[in-house]
């Protein structure tokens, strides 16, 4: 039952915010419902770990449509966590732009719908329905990307919609080929688990074509490199809490769909699925690392780092062993929590100085110690400095690579990660500690910047909440989470 409640809560929130009860009601509803969802998801994840879920939670009639295992529970947990912190962050952030009531309600309704569409991805069991909710994530977030209604935001939203839907068209055909393959192999129930069971009997050519079509189609939305061009635009133009959702969890939850295919394709002896993952992964990491060096906009900096991290995760999956998969799951968790923190810090910076240009900001630490410190912390965390979460996960992936004797892959990955490390820190270092070139170049408090030069309370709260897992997961992974990660990693192997 609780799965259905988890899905219904954001829908209810989207409806409730439409009632005009004043300015506090709207963000309040979103935050309360997101937190309630987080609690429910946490309970569900605990049940999954202790193994008390599947049978009595959903009757047999539901199992064709809904299913929750370790991998879905992990993704659900991330979505609920980042969704909650971003909702808290939204209160203060949106209050700064003096929206009228209608626009504010539109934002929050869209926000909840977007959360709903993402939560539906990991719990749905039937692949075509998953495809539909993947489409829904695009549709629900498009108006959030274009929310600021500037020329750039509209351009970003348009590119986002067109490229994502193009990819979705290719993926749709992929899912149909998958279905046809299952039919040709004697049939079964068209769900993720049904597919894994039916895979050995399916014609290999159909399985392989379906895998490639879906990898390319959905890879567009994950931001894998030849198809990544929309990502830095959309992930930088949206309001910062939305960027945190897009970068932190949307990409991950789409990657989840691709991950579901790995146990299916492993039934074909020489399918090269892991090779494809390695190729796409390494190309993404490499390209993003070099593009990072030349960005002019600090939100784009973090957006490119998302492309880089998606590449790292895919490379880890491409290594193919269960230990590597565990590293990939760790990387998924650390990337989600860290990247959302980075965008919260970037949003606070934007509130303080009113510009997105790296070159226009120098000596941020003197103007606003809190924002400056948050930005440096975020940059260090996402670049992979010890002892933070991303360091631990990247380190374990590199270690696995060496143990498996994949020296070329590991070497390239290490080089790219180091380049990205210096790229991110060079930019942020100049912004935060750099001396002002001349007083005239310092942007005078532009009209968009905050009057009070204080970051709103809810934004500070969200920053603190988001920083906790970044700090803790670098030194200590709780036993329950370790079990969950191990279960999720096991779902990638037949």
């Amino acid at each position, binding site marked *: 039952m609780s799965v259905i409640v988890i899905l219904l809560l954001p829908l209810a929130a989207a409806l409730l915010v439409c009632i005009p009860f004043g300015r506090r009601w709207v963000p309040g509803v979103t935050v309360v419902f997101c937190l309630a969802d987080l609690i429910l998801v946490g309970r569900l994840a605990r049940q999954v770990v202790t193994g008390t879920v599947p049978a009595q939670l959903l009757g047999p009639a539901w199992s064709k449509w809904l299913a929750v295992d370790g991998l879905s529970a992990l993704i659900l947990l991330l979505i609920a966590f980042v969704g909650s912190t971003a909702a808290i962050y939204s209160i203060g952030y949106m209050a700064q732009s003096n929206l009228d009531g209608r626009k504010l309600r539109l934002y929050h309704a869209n926000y909840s719908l977007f959360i709903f569409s993402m939560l539906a991805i990991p719990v749905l069991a*039937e692949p*075509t*329905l998953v495809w*539909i909710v993947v*489409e*829904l994530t695009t*549709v629900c977030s*498009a*108006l959030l990307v*274009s929310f600021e*209604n*500037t*020329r*750039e935001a*509209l*351009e*970003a*939203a*348009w*590119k986002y*919609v*067109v490229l994502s*839907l*193009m990819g979705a*068209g*290719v993926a*749709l*055909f992929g899912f*149909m*080929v998958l*279905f*046809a*393959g299952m*039919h*040709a192999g004697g049939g079964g129930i*068209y769900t993720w688990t049904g597919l894994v069971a039916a895979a050995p009997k399916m*014609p290999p*050519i*159909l399985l392989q*074509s379906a895998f490639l079509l879906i990898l390319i189609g959905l890879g567009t939305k994950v931001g894998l490199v030849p198809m990544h061009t929309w990502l*830095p*635009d959309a992930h*930088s*133009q949206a309001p910062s809490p939305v960027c945190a959702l897009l970068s932190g969890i949307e990409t991950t939850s789409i990657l989840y769909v691709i991950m579901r295919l790995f146990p299916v394709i492993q039934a074909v002896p020489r399918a090269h699925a892991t090779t494809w993952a390695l190729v796409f992964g390494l190309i993404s990491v490499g390209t993003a690392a070099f*593009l990072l060096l*030349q*960005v*002019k*906009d600090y939100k*784009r900096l973090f957006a490119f780092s998302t492309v880089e991290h998606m590449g790292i995760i895919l490379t880890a999956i491409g290594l193919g062993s269960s230990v590597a998969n565990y590293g990939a799951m760790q990387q998924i968790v650390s990337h989600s929590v860290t990247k959302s923190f980075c965008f919260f810090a970037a949003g606070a910076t934007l509130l303080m100085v009113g510009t997105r*240009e790296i070159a226009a900001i120098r000596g941020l630490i003197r103007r606003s110690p809190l924002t400056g410190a948050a930005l440096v912390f975020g940059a260090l965390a996402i670049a992979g400095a010890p002892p933070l979460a991303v360091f631990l996960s990247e380190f374990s992936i590199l270690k696995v690579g060496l143990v498996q004797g994949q020296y070329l892959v590991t070497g390239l990955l290490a080089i790219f990660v180091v380049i990205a490390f210096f790229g991110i820190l060079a930019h942020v270092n100049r912004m935060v500690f750099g001396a002002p070139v001349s007083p005239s170049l310092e942007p005078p408090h532009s009209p968009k910047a905050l009057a009070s030069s204080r970051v709103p309370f809810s934004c500070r709260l969200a920053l603190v909440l988001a920083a906790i897992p970044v700090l803790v997961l670098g030194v200590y992974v709780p036993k329950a989470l370790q079990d969950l990660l191990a279960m999720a990693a096991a779902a990638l192997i037949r």
Partner: protein
Amino acid sequence: MSAATKELLENLNALAAGLFLLTAFGIVAMRQARGCLNLFILQSLLLAASAALLGLRYDSGHLYGVALVNLVSKPIIVPWLLRRTSPAEIYTRREIDQVLNIPTALLIALALAIGAYFVGTPLAQAVGPEFRGPNVPIGIAVLLLGAFTLTVRREALPLLIGLLVMENGAFLAGISIARDLGMLVELAVATDGLVIVFIMGVLVRAVQKQVGTTAVGELASLKETATAAAEERPR
């Protein structure tokens, strides 16, 4: 059902699929935005026809459902939604300066279609001997032609139609190999197409209000190159 009737139905289906491919070529070549929409409606009708014929041939009630959904959603609701959401300007636009001229665009489209034939035929044969029909190669070809349309057009309506054409292509191939995908799924996919049209219509309206053009493909201020973004941004 006699063998002759079966063969007749298969031939009629092949005819519908052939015309379906032809409309995709038309959309690549058509300059007038309104003409693109009309061709797309014709294409959706042909898709519905193909679904109905295959439904008759293989006695599948599910395919009738697909035909019905296509008959209602695309020729009727899509134009209605566009009228409600987008500025009327998108219909009247004509693209004079294209990325590619018509003969070049058609030649590339032809190459794509031939490539799709070589990819699609073995794919269809792998599903089973009774899938020899032209649906899979033509569906893949139209999927590619839709993507090609997206890369060469700049106007809002042809771009939107390019997306819908891709979906049509995926469906034409899909209905022949995945005959009983489930009615719920079909309905959801159809609704999804409508939501896409709605959202893109809203975006086009916002672009037209903010930037004063419906040639959304020409928006290009977001780049890494140093000057472009900085110069265009009003300070």
